[in-house]
């Protein structure tokens, strides 16, 4: 069953069309990576799902219920984690989660237990100080706890890793992966390695429309330009070896790239290197990345102009 469905959704701010006839569906218990450049319409889409923006055309349903602007019925099924979550700084994490629980209408007897469980999950169980003194990473973890508080059927994460350092990013991605069994996650970002690491399905938004969608593997398979790369220790070795191969590109004076060549060709090149007595600094099989596909798609559609800063 699909937890979220967008059907022919459009949204404009004044004369600027941000979302154009966008349709997508997200099955339950998946991590859906929602990618696109800055200004492609990711945040606008999320805010429409949350009923914070009006929908000009089309419909959005969450678990079968239509989203209404300014309404709160569907939001009871949603957890939301923005890029930089802001809290009441004079509260402690426990007090904040208690307030959220009351607002959500959770039963009083389970509030304490649930808050403790979530603070433990995000590693804030020992933090009794007020949120005022929290680092960005700690705020993001508290953001995850509040978003999961009401056992949401759908967790919307809007660029949750963009403001974090590499360690913070790694921890947050692990955390999101760990809650996949409990909920469905929509994860918007422009950091493609993050999406590639945790997403089951990916949708690429460009100029307000879905330019690409499918499972991570399906999208990777669309990219055919596999190859391998050899980095030499000096220019002489690179020159010598380049003279033996007629199908190598040379993106750098020390690097040779063999486009559309797989493992078999790489083994053969290794044998040749051995015969010539050349020891390279590095030899690497290049997997097709989402980034290359992303750039290819964006470039293909570059006939359109970008939508500005509207996320």
């Amino acid at each position, binding site marked *: 069953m699909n937890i979220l469905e967008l059907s022919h959704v459009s949204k404009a701010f004044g004369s600027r069309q941000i979302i154009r006839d966008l349709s997508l569906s997200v099955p339950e218990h998946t991590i859906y990576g929602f990618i696109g450049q800055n200004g492609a319409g990711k945040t606008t889409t999320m805010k429409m799902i949350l009923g914070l923006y009006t929908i000009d055309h089309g419909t959005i349903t969450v678990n079968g219920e239509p989203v209404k602007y300014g309404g709160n019925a569907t939001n009871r099924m949603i957890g*939301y984690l923005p890029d930089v979550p802001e809290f009441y700084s004079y509260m402690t994490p426990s007090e904040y989660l208690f307030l959220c629980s009351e607002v959500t209408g959770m039963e009083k007897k389970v509030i304490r237990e649930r808050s403790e469980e979530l603070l433990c999950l995000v590693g804030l169980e020992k933090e009794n100080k007020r949120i005022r003194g929290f680092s960005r990473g700690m705020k993001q973890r508290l953001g995850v706890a509040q978003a999961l508080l009401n056992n949401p059927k759908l967790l919307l994460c809007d660029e949750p890793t963009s403001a974090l350092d590499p360690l913070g990013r790694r921890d947050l991605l692990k955390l999101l992966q760990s809650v996949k069994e409990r909920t469905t996650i929509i994860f918007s970002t422009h950091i493609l390695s993050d999406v590639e690491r945790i997403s089951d399905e990916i949708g690429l938004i460009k100029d307000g429309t879905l330019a690409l969608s499918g499972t991570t593997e399906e999208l990777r398979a669309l990219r055919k330009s596999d190859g391998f790369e050899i980095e030499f220790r000096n220019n002489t070795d690179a020159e010598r070896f380049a003279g033996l191969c007629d199908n190598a590109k040379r993106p750098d004076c020390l690097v040779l790239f063999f486009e559309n060549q797989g493992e078999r060709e790489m083994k053969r090149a290794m044998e040749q290197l051995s015969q010539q007595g050349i020891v390279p600094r590095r030899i690497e099989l290049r997997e097709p990345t989402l980034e290359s596909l992303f750039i290819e798609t964006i470039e293909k559609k570059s006939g359109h102009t970008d939508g500005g800063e509207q996320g």
Partner: protein
Amino acid sequence: MRQLIAFTKKEYLELWRNGRLTLFGILFLLFGIMNPALAKLTPWLMEQMADTLSEQGMQITSVTVDAMSSWAQFYKNAPMELLIFVVLSSGILTGEYQKGTLIHMLTKGLGRHTVLWAKGLALLGTWTLGYWLCFGVTCAYTAYFWDQSVLTHIGLGAALVYLAGVVLISLILLFSVVLSTGTAVMGAVLGLAAVSYLLAVIPKAAEYLPTYLLSAGGLLSGAMEPSDFLPAVLVSLGITFTSVAAGTVLFRKKTI
């Protein structure tokens, strides 16, 4: 109802922890003490200034102060109390837009009307506590120093000024929905109060304006009757209910 109680509690916790409740308490307590104190000190002050005034050709003979002097001071200070209250309270909702703290609450399913009403209850509670503290202190000291039995409608007069505060609270709520910064809200509320003062120069209009409530001191000396305030009370109640209702409807449509 549970959401309203929870969010109102949060508002009071915020007022307490950011020190605003204490600040209001201290300010209103000071005003409460100042009213009878100024009345009590007036003869002494005039005596100190007598020489300077006589040089300017003014002769001070004798100054008599009584309970009415203390209450006159109470009514003179009321606009200042209202001004301070508006200045300190006008960012109560717009501060949440600016910080982005409301998003989590709304996306948790908190009704927008609940947010507005909880803010209103927090302001009303603060105004009620502060104002009646000021009234209580003034009343107690005045009764201690002078005979108040000659005065009439002390409670009713105070209630009319209290109502003026309630009108301002409803306007703070309405403008907080329409505008996006605390300064703009403050400007709009005070601007409207200024317009009300200006309109009061038209004799027939004066008694219908909420600012007329601030002249309730006239009830104590018997110069005015309670019925004189009926039009201003009705208009004030009308403005209050209309502002809250309009704010509630408009807040549902506001982009946050």
